[in-house]
């Protein structure tokens, strides 16, 4: 517990009567990179601004290395920030930008010179020390912002949408670079983004937020394979969500009245939501969980994408290598118990009963967090 570098305790922020962030709890291990991920308005940026000290928390606490920083102004927090717009000082050279934090800390000249040179080497900008920010490309400005934030040896590094202003080609490269620097420096970091590929590329653990509340915390595998809510299932990757009710342990009746034979058996009854990823569904001539009619078949290169309409009018997307089924063809949809997620009326995962297909039990895990 005390090993955590950063702890958020029931952190909340209200604007009027609206909660932008509500009861966020999080422990971040030293050197860990956490990505706050969610659609706009989910509270991730508000959380970041509370960490930085630009916004005060309405309630809850922020502990950095065990001590509360919630009451400290931004300039006493020793937190490095890389802004989405980079926010370089336009009137200062690259070297003076990087040096800014050291000057504020009254680091002696020689030591500061050395540190600036070291940081510029680290981000491969030593040749650009005397340039002004506007003379640099976006990627280079991003590196200056990173070097400036790291020069103060921050206790925590915050990155706000760090890749969103870069060309697609540069993003992966920059993500790798940031990741390597962060790993090697052992810098505890929080990244905020709405882009799931950016999140996947950078995170040790993901924090999925929605409407100010944390929906799930976990590794890439966990949030992808064992989403905690239907929202996570559809936000990370893609999922077909089918709402209905559990007629019995193994059957979901959709809102439109179609019957879906589930791959596993579930405890409980009543309203439920089934989530299956397009790439987990296989099309066959007969059998399977449900039947439908192909509406569209699209060749996407590596895979084929079929849109299949169930008898109640629900459209499911199916993606994968395999046989082509033309529009109008009747097909069966098959998926494994491991690929299937059923959520109960409260959007919590329903437990699969042990008697599920024996072959699949190896891939199953307890879903309770």
């Amino acid at each position, binding site marked *: 517990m005390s090993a955590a570098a950063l702890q958020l305790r029931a952190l909340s922020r209200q604007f009027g009567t609206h909660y932008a962030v509500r009861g966020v709890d999080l422990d971040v291990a030293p050197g860990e990179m956490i990505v706050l991920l969610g659609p706009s308005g989910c509270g991730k940026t508000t959380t970041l601004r509370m960490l*930085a*000290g*630009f916004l005060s928390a309405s309630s809850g606490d922020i502990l950095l290395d065990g001590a509360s920083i919630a009451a400290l*102004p*931004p*300039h*006493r*927090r*020793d*937190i*490095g*920030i890389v*802004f*989405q*717009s980079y*926010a*370089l*000082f*336009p*009137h200062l050279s690259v070297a003076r930008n990087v040096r*800014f*934090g050291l000057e*504020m*800390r009254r680091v002696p000249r020689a030591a500061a010179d050395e540190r600036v040179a070291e940081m510029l080497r680290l981000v491969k900008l030593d040749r650009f020390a005397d340039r002004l920010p506007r003379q640099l490309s976006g990627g280079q400005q991003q590196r200056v*912002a990173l070097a*400036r*934030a790291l020069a*103060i040896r921050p206790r925590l590094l915050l990155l706000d949408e760090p890749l969103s202003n870069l060309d697609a080609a540069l993003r992966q490269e920059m993500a790798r670079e940031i990741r390597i620097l962060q790993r090697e420096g052992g810098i505890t970091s929080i990244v905020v983004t709405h882009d799931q590929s950016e999140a996947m590329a950078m995170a040790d653990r993901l924090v999925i937020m929605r409407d100010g509340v944390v929906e799930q915390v976990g590794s890439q595998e966990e949030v992808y394979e064992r989403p905690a809510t239907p929202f996570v299932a559809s936000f990370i990757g893609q999922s077909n969500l089918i709402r209905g009710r559990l007629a019995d342990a193994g059957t979901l009746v959709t809102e439109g009245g179609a019957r879906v034979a589930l791959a596993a058996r579930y405890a409980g009854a009543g309203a439920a939501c089934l989530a299956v990823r397009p790439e987990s569904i296989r099309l066959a001539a007969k059998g399977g969980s449900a039947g439908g009619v192909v509406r569209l078949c699209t060749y996407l290169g590596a895979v084929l994408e079929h849109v299949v309409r169930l008898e109640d009018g629900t459209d499911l997307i199916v993606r994968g290598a395999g046989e082509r089924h033309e529009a109008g063809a009747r097909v069966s949809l098959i998926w494994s118990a491991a690929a299937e997620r059923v959520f109960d009326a409260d959007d919590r995962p329903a437990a699969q009963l042990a008697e599920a297909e024996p072959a699949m039990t190896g891939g199953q895990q307890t879903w309770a967090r």
Partner: protein
Amino acid sequence: MSATAVVSQPHADPAAALGRAAVLALIAAGLLIIFVPLLLTLYLSLFDEKLILFPPRGYTLAWYPAIIPNFGGAVLVSLELAFGAVIGSLLIGVPAGIALSRYRFRGAGIISTLLLAPLTVPGIALGLAIYLFLVLIEIGTGWPLTGSLLGLILSHLIVTMPWVVRLSVASLVNHDRAAEEAAASLGASPVRVIWRVTLPAMRQGIIAAGLFAFITSFGNLEMALFLVAPGVTTLPVAILEYLEYHIDPLVAAVAVAQMVLIALLLLVLDRFVRLGQVVR
């Protein structure tokens, strides 16, 4: 000019061509209205006449050397006054501009209105009101404000301040607030953030504000009219007083000298800031 335009666009819409001609005519009219009085003033200042008679008997540069003995003192007072007004309005107006554009606080709207309102009041009314106000203070406290340089500077602040506040606010409109947050996160206290990040970002706006304040103060007649005293007279007031008894080309020479002074100031400043960018 128009011939080449027609040739290069043989299929030009006649309505568009007419529109272009109208715009050119307007520009020409504007330039005429601005420059004809200036050129006439320059012309008059060269007349070799005691009274302004047309046509003149001859031309002379003699009016120019006569400026110093007649108006030298007033020019000096006006320069001192303008510098005082510039410094005073920058010291108050720039922080006010930062506060108005950076922070949300109760009464921001009222302060903004108050700072900008003097632009809407006729100058002569303001001048009279300020005079009465200063007289009341003088009666109450015994401080000799009317007829003093300090009184003049205080009154000019009212008309120079709106320019400074407006240009300060405008210079921060496009400034990325994240730069200030970045500075804070790097360890800069709020005062150092303003000193190291906000003010440098406002540099062009501040220079332009100072320039406008200077020109406004230097050319202002109404605020000073009631506040001057023997020995403490500004150039516009001195010119007005001179015109009561003399109508000779000396006044035109003074006007030309004043124009040249301000034009030089603009040229020098244009080397430091692109005035065209600041004043839109």
